[in-house]
């Protein structure tokens, strides 16, 4: 609703009110039978992504799709917008979360995947599946990895670490006056690692049965070892960029860094062949390498005025248009496509470190379980931070987390 000068003069009282509710980009019809949809994306760092999604939307004929590109705290923005009628019709989401599903904020998209469900990697489909229904269509897969600088390891006589003990040891031996051994993020590790060390110990955050997956002495043993990065002084802290940006690694501030597959092109450009990638190394007798995978997925808001049109559009873009999906995953930064057939075709993933990363993801990938709520995650990360940085007793800290997480699991299991 445009605000005319007369309206402004006539209703001084009204400006704030009318201004707020106007131009939400939805609810209207454009032309006969062509609904208007608003589609939200978070801000991708790679240049060209925004233009690309605009191009995809423009190619859709059955609805006028308006792209909203949202920088900043995307999760908070969508969460707040989903409570109102002025939110998106279609939105990109790292979840959807169990709370969003249980509160009925997103629609059931199972039907859209009818013939192609088997193509999607079960690791990323599982956290979007609740009671056998799928609530988000994965758009691409993001993987996190350990990058190491070959020349620095050779100079220090260190081999690429194959176990957590070797990693701790390597970080210590690689630390020099101006180069730290390992960059695990400016907060010192908890945020970047999350549940990864638990999976490396052969445990999990939530068991398939919906119980806490790390109520085990092995958890405390593994997490306790992370403390040594700090006591050895081998971590880079307070870098200008955080762990998801490869700058600290490419500028030589650290010999190893925990980062994502998305950074691989940048690292390759800066260092050529002088680097390698590894999964998070295993620890303990039941341990196995661990590779966290995440995915952005497309979801449809239940409050959309055009639900069917929105679902049809999602099906068109994220199920049918494989050419766009391939372009999206491969042309702007490096990601693994969400579908096996596209991964097999992707030339950039066929050789070198990228191929290694794809193999690690396939063999060792784990995704944060759907039932692992934000409250559980906060309790866990708080404990992990205290263990790593303040030397708190891992056993005691974990006991409190198990209690909190059990209560959360009980809460979400007992709801609708």
């Amino acid at each position, binding site marked *: 609703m445009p605000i005319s000068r007369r309206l402004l003069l006539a209703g*001084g*009282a009204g400006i*704030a*009110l009318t201004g707020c509710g106007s131009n939400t980009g939805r609810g209207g019809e454009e032309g006969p039978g062509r609904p208007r949809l608003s589609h939200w994306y978070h801000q991708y760092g790679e240049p060209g992504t925004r233009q690309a999604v605009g191009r995809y939307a423009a190619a859709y004929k059955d609805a006028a799709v308006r792209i909203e590109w949202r920088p900043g705290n995307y*999760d*908070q923005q969508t*969460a*707040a917008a*989903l*409570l109102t009628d002025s939110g998106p019709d279609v939105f990109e989401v790292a*979840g959807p*979360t169990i*709370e*969003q599903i*249980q*509160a009925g*904020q997103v629609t059931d998209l199972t039907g859209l995947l009818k013939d192609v469900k088997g193509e999607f990697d079960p690791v990323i489909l599982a956290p979007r599946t609740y009671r056998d229904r799928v609530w988000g269509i994965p758009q691409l897969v993001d993987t996190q990895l350990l990058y190491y600088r070959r020349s620095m390891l050779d100079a220090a006589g260190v081999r690429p670490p194959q176990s957590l003990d070797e990693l701790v040891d390597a970080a210590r031996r690689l630390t020099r006056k*101006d180069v730290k051994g390992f960059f695990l*993020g*400016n*907060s*010192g590790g*908890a*945020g*970047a690692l*999350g549940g990864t060390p638990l999976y490396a110990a052969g445990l999990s955050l939530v068991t398939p049965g919906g119980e806490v997956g790390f109520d085990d002495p092995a958890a405390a043993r593994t997490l306790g070892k992370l403390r040594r990065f700090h006591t050895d002084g081998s971590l*880079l*802290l*307070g*870098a*200008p960029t*955080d762990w*998801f940006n490869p700058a600290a690694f490419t500028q030589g*501030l650290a010999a190893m860094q925990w980062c994502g597959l998305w950074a691989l092109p940048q690292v390759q450009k800066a260092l050529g062949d002088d680097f390698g990638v590894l999964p998070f190394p295993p620890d303990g007798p039941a341990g196995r390498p661990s590779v966290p995978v995440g995915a952005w997925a497309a979801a449809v808001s239940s409050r959309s005025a055009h639900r069917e049109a929105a679902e049809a559009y999602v099906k068109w873009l994220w199920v049918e248009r494989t050419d766009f999906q391939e372009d999206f995953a491969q042309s702007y930064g490096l990601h693994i496509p969400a579908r096996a057939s596209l991964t097999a075709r992707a030339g950039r993933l066929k050789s070198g470190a990228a191929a290694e990363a794809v193999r690690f993801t396939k063999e060792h990938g784990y995704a944060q379980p759907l039932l692992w*709520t*934000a*409250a559980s*995650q*906060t309790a866990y*990360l*708080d404990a992990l*931070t*205290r263990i790593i*940085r*303040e030397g708190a007793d891992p056993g005691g800290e974990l006991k409190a987390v198990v209690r909190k997480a059990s209560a959360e699991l009980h809460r979400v299991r007992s709801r609708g």
Partner: protein
Amino acid sequence: MPAAPRRLPAARQRHRALWFWAFVGPFAAGLALFTYVPLAWSVYLSFFDAHNTVSPTEFVRLDNYATLLADASFRSSLVTFAVFSAFIVPATYALSLGLALAVNRLRAGRAFFRSVFFLPTACSYVVAATVWKLSVFNGVRFGLANTVLGWFGAEPVAWLASTDPPWYWLVIITVRLWLQAGFYMVLFLAGLQRIPPRLYEAAALDGARPGWQTFRHITFPALRSTSVAVVLLLIINAFQAFDEFYNLLSDQRGYPPYARPPLVHLYYLALGQGQDLGLGSAGAVLLALIIAVVTVVQARWSGLGRRED
């Protein structure tokens, strides 16, 4: 001037009432709609299980309050606030009073220095926090603070990441001092300029030495009402601390378990991915109650608004 008010004709009085509402109405409506309704709604939500909804149906009585008071991290956030205000309130008070006294004594360039010290107030907390985090106190060898340390041969310090000793407090306190000292300096300057010169003349005649004695017995007592207002504002501001904490310490995955003031804690509780709006509202109500109690107690104790004669 006739002192007795004239009675206005009825039509004119109606006219006045109309104009009164024309001017006050929009703001009253805005205040009600954007302040009082959300406030009341928040109190309402605090009695419900409101995950991802603002129109909850599951009434849980006082459960949210009980959960919050039993939550060690909420209690520790109150401790964080107490520690923070124990540092920031006296520090800002002393610094801004000192600046005001110094600027007030200047014979030349007073306006210049007043502007210079006041200028940081115009800077946003977010911008200042970002500058502090990325260039002044970053943890690598080319950060400003570490460069200075480097001249003396010291190792770089990870200012925001070291918990032993807790250097992050230095970063948090200095950014806020820099931002707000100038504002309170202006308040003190106004207070200083209201002290009648005859008080100083009388004191000088009675043999009071300039300097500490005059300050202690004339200036400081004469600034009492300004001081009370400044301390009150400082405490409320400390309670509302969010911007610099959030921008200095949070990362993409969350916030470390230390230096987490109440508003930051509630932000993650209610507005993060958890969206537990009932619990968050209960926290907001508790905080509002605490601020109200503290303010009333402080006002009583210091005699805020009492007439000075």
